[in-house]
């Protein structure tokens, strides 16, 4: 009777012997941190060096312990794990650092009353000097720059999306990989690599020639940005249209549906989530461009709500000028506070766009479920 029962085993069965205990990494990590701190204390402590030394000690310690107990295959596995996790942390570090720096420096500017609702019109160095001397709130805001960024980007999107999407449709549905299609693909690839300042110079020169010398408006900046956006939109839409299964096109043709209707009603709806998120990412890509806007829309300190006339501010150019030419050269702190605030707003905008892209992708995704 009892012989059929499973005998009570010790925790480590024959199948699991020769393995490091589960707590091993934590033990090694604690040891590495302590030893690392000790080594750094000898040469002078700093947090960055502590992290590097501890990480190295942890990798060496864990891999050699594993090599002794578990053999070389497991040790190699541990080494690879250390390298992968280490690379991940290295890649994450700049991102976290940027967000942290911008948050720390930008929140005071953002919390300033009127920061989002006033422009820099009439704000001179006198006010900044007074703010620093008396400790009063910093005057001036980014309303004009925010308005400019939104308008310029919106107009650029309105130009780029139809051009980019129609180009992608030509390439995928009509090009048949012919000579013209291959030429377009080549030039789109070339356009992807155009430096943004060149796009700005092109738009400026084009409008100087067509409209008149010295034409600097938000619309010119929008044209410059669309030069940067179109190849991104073409590429992402092309990829999305390509992965629509041919079976769906054939299913529509077999029902007696015309080709253009098939494209409009079957192919694009099937790919719309990918196209929409591609467009949003393209917007996020150009919203932070500085150089092309400086040479095309100039720089304004007051509100200009007409995208087709007059110089226009945008968030990146606002940051650039606030840092380079502080409103009050004697007291640059208020200017840099405004610049950081604008940087934070810009990052929040990009983040909202990315979240929007995910939301759009989810809303438009082909529905599943019973």
């Amino acid at each position, binding site marked *: 009777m009892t012989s059929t029962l499973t005998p009570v085993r010790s925790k480590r069965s024959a199948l699991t012997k020769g393995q490091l205990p589960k707590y091993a990494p934590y033990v090694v990590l604690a040891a590495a941190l302590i030893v690392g701190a000790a080594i750094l204390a000898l040469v002078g402590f700093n947090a960055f060096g502590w992290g590097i030394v501890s990480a190295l000690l942890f990798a060496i310690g864990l891999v050699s312990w594993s090599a002794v107990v578990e053999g070389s295959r497991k040790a190699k596995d541990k080494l690879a794990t250390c390298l992968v996790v280490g690379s991940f942390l290295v890649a994450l570090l700049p991102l976290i650092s940027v967000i942290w720096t911008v948050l720390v420096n930008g929140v005071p500017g953002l919390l300033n009353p009127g920061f989002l609702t006033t422009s820099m019109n009439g704000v001179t160095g006198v006010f900044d000097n007074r703010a620093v001397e008396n400790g009063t709130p910093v005057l001036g805001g980014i309303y004009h720059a925010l308005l400019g960024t939104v308008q310029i980007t919106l107009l650029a999107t309105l130009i780029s999306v139809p051009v980019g999407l129609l180009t992608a449709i030509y390439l995928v549905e009509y090009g048949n990989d012919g000579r013209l299609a291959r030429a377009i693909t080549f030039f789109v690839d070339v356009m992807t690599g155009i430096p943004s300042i060149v796009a700005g110079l092109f738009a400026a020169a084009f409008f100087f020639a067509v409209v008149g010398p010295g034409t600097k408006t938000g619309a010119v900046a929008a044209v410059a940005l669309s030069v940067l956006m179109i190849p991104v939109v073409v590429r992402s839409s092309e990829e999305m249209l390509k992965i629509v299964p041919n079976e769906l096109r*054939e299913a529509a043709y077999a029902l007696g549906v015309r080709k253009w209707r098939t494209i409009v*009603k079957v192919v694009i709806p099937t790919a719309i989530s990918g196209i929409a998120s591609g467009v949003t990412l393209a917007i996020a890509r150009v919203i932070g461009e500085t150089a092309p806007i400086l040479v095309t829309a100039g720089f304004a300190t007051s509100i200009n709500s007409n995208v087709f006339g007059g110089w226009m501010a945008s968030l990146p150019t606002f940051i650039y000028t606030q840092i380079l030419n502080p409103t009050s050269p004697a007291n640059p702190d208020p200017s840099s506070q405004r610049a950081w605030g604008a940087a934070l707003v810009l990052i929040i905008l990009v983040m909202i766009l990315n979240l929007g892209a995910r939301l759009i992708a989810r809303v438009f995704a082909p*529905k599943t479920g019973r």
Partner: protein
Amino acid sequence: MSKRIDVKDLNVYYGDFLAVEDVTINIEAKSVTAFIGPSGCGKSTFLRTLNRMHEVLPGARVEGEVLLDGDNLYGPGVDPVTVRSQIGMVFQRPNPFPTMSIRDNVLAGVKLNNKKISKGEADVLVERSLKGANLWNEVKDRLEKPGSGLSGGQQQRLCIARAIAVEPQVILMDEPCSALDPISTLAIEDLINELKDQYTVVIVTHNMQQAARVSDRTAFFNIAGTGKPGKLIEVGDTHTIFSNPSQKATEDYVSGRFG
């Protein structure tokens, strides 16, 4: 609501490559015609020429005549879209539109062509088509759910419902059961038997038992070797083809002695 198809001396090309050579065949109205033959012999290619789906592929073209009740599909000025609205097609893999509900899938042929249809008429058409495809009882409570949530066999019957909703003269089926389990296959075969009361059905199949079960007439295609064009070897009553074929190759193939 069904028409006969007469094919005369049809050659099918992919670019310069002759894929199917010199097919002459008469497909009777209100009957089931099965195409059998080894892989790569051009059955599916030939089937696709019957509703001009073939020319969707770049470089594909045909020579010869395909007559739908005497009208040449490949005559000058014939719009392939008109042809396809009269000759429907069901594909090997079920391919319901993933962005549409079951109901919209059935109505796809109408809605994608922007024909105006009242809600009442649409309801009648959906019910009639789904009943025609033996799917109504399974989906009548979830018409607004996506078509991709159905099982493979149900999806295939949804595709058949979608095809018959545009009221074609002829229905072409390209191995409609090859991705399905035996029970779903049985459901489709029963359906084919019912469909032939109203439609001309042409089915390509790899399954000889299936051809014997569902078809009235059978056409055997063969290929001499790789790179050679496929040919129509023999066509006749299904019973004759399987029991007393006139060609040696047909006999070898249907009795499994092929190759």
